[in-house]
């Protein structure tokens, strides 16, 4: 589903990603772990082209993100073509970023209505079903400010799912939550995994990674240090840096 | 156009001792004159931006001197001069006021000049021709707010209606330059203002404006005083003295407006 080869990303003179090679198979859950500043969020943002990359190739479902190849040369895509590519990828942010002026249901139906041009009644039916699926059937008309952090994050997940994405990206979806509500959100993600959704999850919850991930990838200083099945990588890390990091967070 | 600044006025400074000046004014020693210095040549600001010049300034100083007072000519907006008399901000108002019945309801006037009204248009080949008030019907007319011509136009409006002619479209501007610009830009067909003013601005406009037709009417200009002020008779007497000793004639000649000279000043002489 995701094929990244030698992805480079620079901010000004700061090299943030220094050649990322990473593959996520369809239907697989991959967890991305690593210290603060290692470039995990940046990589996620490159995957749905919220950031442009300066080198390498990044394809989702066989399509290069942001470019097309014509007569052997890369051509930049237009805004609307990039928007169409993004619409196929769901993204859940650390701080939810729910639209503050819309109710939970309005948040969920906005993109289907405007981007997929679904009929309003269909969008509302789908949105209601999605909110029910994340356990918020009684919060349809609540504004984000009236919801707890865990509830907000579940709305954000429903909002991303409403576009029926092929791939979901999660950027530390539980790290802004208080300890008691973390569980709610992890349950929802666990369900999605069980349904076969392809997911790339940046997380600090090692217990969750161990339980749900098919592959765990450890990044540091803009590079992938090692990757493998969770029980292997988390129990018997090959690389000293991985060991050092795990010692600190576990 | 340039700005003609006439030489300093030559004024007779000899007090006429037999004229009775109200005691409070005598105690104060100065005659405060309110004027809107944007109406050349009746009154305008000298190049220094502080001294007011023109007929009213010169005549005002001469009158004060005759009464044994110092003159203080203060610039004020036209609208605020008559209210300023009530608040005692000014002792007299001299700003080319036409003595009208309407104004006489609130103030007294000592008449000192006789001005007709002239029409002016944009100077161009085949331009608008206006000879009399009747020619105004159906035209766009530019006026300055608060002038006597506003009342003339309102009266003529009724005449046009009575004669079944199209109405005058009146545009009333806050100041005379606005009205002039309306005529120059073609926004208005014709402007109407006191004859001396019309002649002066035609000269200043570098050939953009032209006076047309014959002046009509001869409305008296009056020096405005608070209603019932005892100063009125004093001013009239002083003015009479200036007419007699020739100072009055000199001042008018200086601005080229001898045509409006009067011989006998009066009090409240508005035409019916």
């Amino acid at each position, binding site marked *: 589903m995701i094929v990244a080869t030698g992805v480079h990303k620079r901010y000004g003179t700061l090299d943030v990603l220094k050649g990322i090679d990473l593959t996520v198979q369809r239907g697989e859950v991959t967890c991305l772990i690593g210290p603060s500043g290692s470039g995990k969020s940046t990589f996620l943002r490159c995957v749905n082209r919220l950031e442009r990359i300066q080198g390498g190739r990044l394809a989702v479902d066989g399509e290069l993100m942001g470019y097309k190849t014509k007569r052997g040369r890369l051509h930049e895509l237009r805004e609307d073509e990039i928007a169409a590519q993004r619409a*196929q990828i769901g993204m859940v*942010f650390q701080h939810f970023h729910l639209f503050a*002026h819309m109710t939970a249901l309005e948040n969920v139906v*906005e993109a289907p209505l405007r981007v997929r041009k679904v009929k309003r009644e269909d969008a509302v039916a789908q949105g209601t079903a999605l909110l029910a699926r994340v356990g918020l059937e009684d919060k349809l008309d609540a504004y984000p400010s009236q919801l707890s952090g865990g509830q907000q994050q579940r709305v954000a997940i429903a909002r991303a799912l409403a576009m029926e994405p092929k791939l979901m990206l999660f950027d530390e979806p539980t790290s802004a939550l208080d300890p008691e509500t973390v569980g709610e959100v992890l349950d929802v993600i666990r369900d999605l995994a069980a349904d076969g959704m392809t997911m790339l999850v940046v997380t600090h919850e090692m217990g969750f990674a161990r339980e749900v991930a098919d592959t765990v990838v450890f990044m540091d200083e803009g590079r992938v240090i090692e990757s493998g099945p969770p029980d292997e990588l988390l129990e018997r890390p090959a690389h000293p840096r991985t060991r050092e990091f795990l010692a600190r967070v576990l | 156009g340039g700005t003609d600044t006439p030489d300093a006025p030559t004024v007779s400074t000899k007090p006429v001792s037999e004229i009775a000046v109200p005691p409070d004014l005598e105690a104060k020693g100065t005659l405060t004159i309110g004027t809107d210095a944007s109406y050349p040549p009746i009154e305008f600001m000298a190049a220094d931006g502080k001294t007011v010049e023109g007929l009213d300034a010169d005549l005002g100083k001469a009158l004060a001197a005759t009464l044994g007072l110092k003159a203080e000519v203060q610039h004020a907006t036209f609208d605020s001069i008559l*209210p300023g008399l009530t608040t005692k901000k000014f002792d007299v108002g001299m700003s080319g006021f036409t003595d009208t019945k309407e104004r006489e309801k609130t103030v007294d006037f000592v008449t000192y000049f006789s001005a007709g009204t002239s029409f002016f248009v944009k100077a161009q080949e085949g331009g608008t021709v206006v000879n009399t008030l009747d020619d105004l019907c159906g035209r766009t007319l*530019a006026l300055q707010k608060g002038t006597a011509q506003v009342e003339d136009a309102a009266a003529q409006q009724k005449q046009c209606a009575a004669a079944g002619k199209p109405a005058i479209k009146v545009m009333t501007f806050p100041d005379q330059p606005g009205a002039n610009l309306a005529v120059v830009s073609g*926004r208005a067909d014709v402007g109407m203002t006191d004859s001396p003013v019309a002649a002066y601005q035609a000269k200043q406009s570098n050939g953009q404006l032209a006076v047309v037709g014959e002046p009509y009417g001869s409305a008296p200009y009056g020096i405005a005083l608070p209603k019932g002020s005892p100063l009125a008779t004093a001013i009239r007497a002083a003015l009479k003295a200036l007419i007699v000793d020739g100072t009055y004639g000199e001042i008018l000649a200086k601005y080229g407006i001898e045509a409006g000279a009067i011989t006998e000043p009066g009090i409240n002489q508005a035409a019916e």
Partner: protein
Amino acid sequence: MQPIDAVPVRRPGRWIAALAVALLAAAVVRSVATNPRFQWDVVGEMLFSDRILHGLVLTLELTVIAMVAGVALGILVAVARMSPNKLLAGAGAFYVWLFRGTPVLVQLLFWNFIAALYPTIELGPIHADANTLITPFMASLLGLALNQAAYMAEIVRAGILSVPEGQAEAASALGLSRAQTLRRIVLPQAMRVIVPPTGNETISMLKTTSLVSVIASSDLLYSAQLIYSQSFQQIPLLIVVCIWYLAITTLLSLGQSMLERRYGRGVARARRETKPMRLPNLAVAR
């Protein structure tokens, strides 16, 4: 439960202040009501006179149209200024500089008397007499709206900057286009910051419209001035004007607080509502 039955702090300063304000208010009301110079009879007579009401209508027309056009154009200018396209950003900045930098009065004179500069206007196929193309009403609107747009552009820009970046990012991630993001996500949230200063501007505009007097249009204030320039009842007529302005300002302020509540939706926390920002009570003597 052991109740708390405490003696409150004595605040003599507060009582003295209250008394002073009350006395002052009473004195002002009495003096205004009894001073014959206010000529309250004339006020009553002129309040609904035809000329005043005509002026009022023009004032309202100009205010509404100029504000609507000014806000719309202001949004465009703000967006242009914030555009990544250098040319557009420059044009937007120039617009704001030029129109904030020159007095509305001059702008009104310019549009109304443009014929004094350009007797005929040629714009490609259009070829018209300037005076027929731009009527005085058009000139008023052009002058007021173009000027207002420059001020609104600054207000809108501040509003847009106040919306957290994450909102636009989340919209992009969902596949909304830039235009949709602006219209559906960013602007509605920016409104919270945009509405209060726009209220200020609207109330200002109400009064600014009286500048159209320089092109001989009679708004509320100029109508009154024209009347008192003949009748010399300056004080009562100005009171009439103030009464109308105050009435409309009151309505506009009500409208403003309604809009503020509307766009505050979802922003105020539930618990915030019972707990307004508390502020030092500086002016009260301790």
